[in-house]
């Protein structure tokens, strides 16, 4: 059974159909890249998998380990192991990063019937991951993402990925707003989390990110559908020929 199975997904926002029957299967241990031009529905797909309100699923289904994901509230999906790294992580003034991380981690553990992390274990774990991602301690004391640079916000997303240990990571435009150094740090963080038990879906505009996070499969999205799938060579073809060559197929 695939870890994630999207079948003939049709999604509308305010009566306008964005996804017109999208299908995708992701197995444990695989890294899939989803590429496509602006407006092709890439971010919609990531939002619907995570459970963001405001999208109407008119047909199709999303199964996660065979369970109907669409019936679960977002927090239940998170506890089951679905993680969305946001394209634009929000700033939450007044909520200290450490408080947020601990509340979220313990909420997920509680939902899975696991015991809460002890404070020393939690702190040790956060510090260790933060060091690896080059996240300074003072960032952890500030409000969630408040005053963080674009790179810091993305690293904070990867920090959460490392802490929560999800089995499916969806990275929505992780490279947007990052310079090359910030991108490398973020990509190294992601690569460190690759494992045979964990799948990743990397959503991106540009092939550049895929030089750092090398995918097993590449899918091209256009106008709300996957129009072509292949291996990492497909990304290079895209880079050379652009998206236009696939648009007719949509």
């Amino acid at each position, binding site marked *: 059974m695939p870890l994630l199975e999207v079948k003939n997904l049709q999604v509308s926002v305010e009566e306008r159909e964005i996804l017109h029957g999208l299908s995708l299967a992701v197995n444990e241990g695989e890294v899939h890249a989803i590429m496509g031009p602006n407006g092709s529905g890439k971010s919609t797909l990531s939002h619907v998998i*995570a*459970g*963001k*309100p405001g999208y109407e699923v008119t047909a199709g289904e999303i199964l996660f380990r065979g369970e109907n994901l669409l019936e679960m*509230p*977002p*927090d239940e*999906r*998170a*506890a089951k192991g679905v993680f*969305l790294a*946001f394209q634009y*992580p*929000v700033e*939450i*003034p*007044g*909520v200290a990063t450490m*408080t*947020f991380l601990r*509340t*979220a*981690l313990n*909420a*997920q553990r509680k*939902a899975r019937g696991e015991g809460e992390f002890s404070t020393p274990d939690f702190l040790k774990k956060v510090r260790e991951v933060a060091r690896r991602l080059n996240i300074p301690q003072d960032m952890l004391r500030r*409000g969630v993402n408040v005053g963080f640079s674009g790179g810091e916000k993305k690293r904070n997303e990867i920090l*959460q990925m490392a802490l*929560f240990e999800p089995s499916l990571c969806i990275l929505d435009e992780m490279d947007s707003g990052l310079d090359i150094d910030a991108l490398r740090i973020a990509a190294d963080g992601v690569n460190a989390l690759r494992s045979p038990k964990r799948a990743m879906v990397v959503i991106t505009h540009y092939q550049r990110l895929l030089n750092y996070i090398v995918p097993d499969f590449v899918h091209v999205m256009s106008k709300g559908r996957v129009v072509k799938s292949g291996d990492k060579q497909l990304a290079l073809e895209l880079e050379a020929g652009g998206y236009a060559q696939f648009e007719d197929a949509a």
Partner: protein
Amino acid sequence: MNLALAKTDTARALGNIFATARERLPGAGAVAEMRQRAFEAFERTGLPHRRIEEWKYTDLRALMREVLPLAAAPDADALERAGAALASLATADAQLLVLVDGAFAPTLSHLAGLEAGVQVRALREALEDKGNQASADLLNNGATAGPMISLNAAMATDGVLVTIAEDAAPAKPLHVVHVATCSSAAIYTRSVLTVGKGARVTLLESFIAVGGARSYQANDTVTVRLGEAAELEQVRLMVDAPDAINMSTAIFTIGAKARLNTFNMTSGGGVSRYQGYLTFAGEGADVRANGVNLLNGRQHADTTLFLDHAVPNCTSREIFRSVVDDRAHSVFQGRIMVRPDAQKTDAKMMTRALLLSDEAEADNKPELEIFADDVTCGHGATTGALDESLLFYLRARGLSEKEAQALLIQAFVGEAIESIADDAVRELAISTAQRWLAARG
């Protein structure tokens, strides 16, 4: 027609209650005369109603309806129940001064271990002390006028008179706890705090009820005088019974170079109003006046602050946050007066309301009256709902809807609560807010 009739009935009922209570009210001679005058002042307006501008949003003729007889003095059983209720406030090491149903309770208070420079006396004892003019002055509201304050002066049965000597700095906060054990009765308390020149103190005031205390009416007035360069942190936590009425007043006179950090949080009670009158009496003083309303069900809570910049070179900052759920109603009225002489005044006020339901209501009324020309004054007011994008972010990280809301609500009120400097007192305020959040389910 109905309104006029109700007014007459209420006034008559109150008149009877005062006549009946007189026998039991402490103080004779000048004290009794002062009470009579105060009651007459109250009778001239009666219960305030919506056509009086300051009471526009808190129409007591509609919200209070009846005036209740004076609560009986607490018996041994009431004192025991009050003592048990104090456990919910167990903060690290505060000096407890306990008032039960409007009577000072020495057996529940920590009178033995008072720190150096701290003096405490019961109001009743002072009022009964010869009934002279000095005693009568304890019931004097000075320039501060208002029907509920006048009623308080007429009816006050007891309270605490606290004096902090010059340069004294007691380490422990003083904690005045108002415990209600009675039902369908009225409690009138009145206290005075005098902080001497250069002294530093933290005053915590809590309003709580034992289980089973219902439909009581509390009316408290505290008069605070801050000497030159004195420092006071005053924190009020109003956690009354859900159907109780609480009308509280604090009157501050702030000396030169004094620092006042005052905070009020209302999370209990059915109908309440906290009115603070803060007057700068000397230059170079600084006031932080912050507050939080946490309301649900059909609660009505009004915080009305009047900052009187009567002298030059003083600073004031006000931060107010209200969180309103269900059909509750929050009111914040912030009036800042900058008198003609009060040049170089620096006054800022920010009030924000968070509405958690479609039927919740928040009224924010900032009023700036500026008669000096070299001042910095500003205010802001916002009303809104929880940010959906923040809620989704938190839920995508595993927090349930209620957990996500709770975290954002805590953040929303955090700026006001974090202003409390005393660690133990701040923790108590935070845990009080958390109890309110937990009760939302």
